[in-house]
């Protein structure tokens, strides 16, 4: 099972802040998980067409598309940071 979090504009676009997801078969990287979610969810797909990048964190560390994903991981999607 993956624990997925959405923050800020990503959370608002999807209408939810978190969800649990059975690790999809064949998904071992960030790119593969994103591909799976874009196919499964039109709103998630539209996010990736927008001008604002979507960042990914795996277990609270920002990851690139090659980042590994395993069962039990905590995944988060969010726009670029704007704190401070």
């Amino acid at each position, binding site marked *: 099972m993956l624990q997925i979090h959405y*923050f*800020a504009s990503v959370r608002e676009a999807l209408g939810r802040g978190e969800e649990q997801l059975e690790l999809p078969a064949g998904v071992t990287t960030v790119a593969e998980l994103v591909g799976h979610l874009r196919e499964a969810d039109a709103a998630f797909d539209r996010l990736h067409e927008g001008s604002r990048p979507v960042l990914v*964190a795996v277990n*609270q560390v920002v990851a690139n598309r090659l980042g590994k994903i395993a069962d039990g991981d905590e995944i988060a999607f969010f726009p670029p*940071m704007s704190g401070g």
Partner: protein
Amino acid sequence: MQRISVQSEDFDVGAEYRRLCSDAPGAGAVATFCGLVRDYHDAGSSDAVRELQLEHYPGMTERCIGECLRQAQQRWKLLAVRVIHRVGSLRPGEQIVFVGVASHHRADALQAASFIMDSLKSEAPLWKKQCSSSGEEWIDIRDSDREALSRWSAAAE
């Protein structure tokens, strides 16, 4: 000695300064920076900001700020560091963020405070939404903030 807080409550700059002094009894220099909510975001905009909502990723925020401080401790000789970042609903004029650094010499304290602000702005998972009379809007990172951070990597080479 370093202390990090992510909190909705306000903070007292004078009390934080005194605590830095007592955390670092041999210090010769204490630099502080405090960010306040401005009543506009872009100089070109005439919309007065009524509220700023600060969302964060609990756990990861503290971890990222801790990583910024670890990098600062490697670059400069620091005796005590304090970071407070507020989250939740803030109004113009309110305090958002505090960075305080105590060190032996002034350049360490001032440069580290500047570096910590630049890196937490670009690296800690915090997001600002601005509410004005014309609606709500998520604030994007400024190009100047990205450049501010990249200057530090150039300086380290």
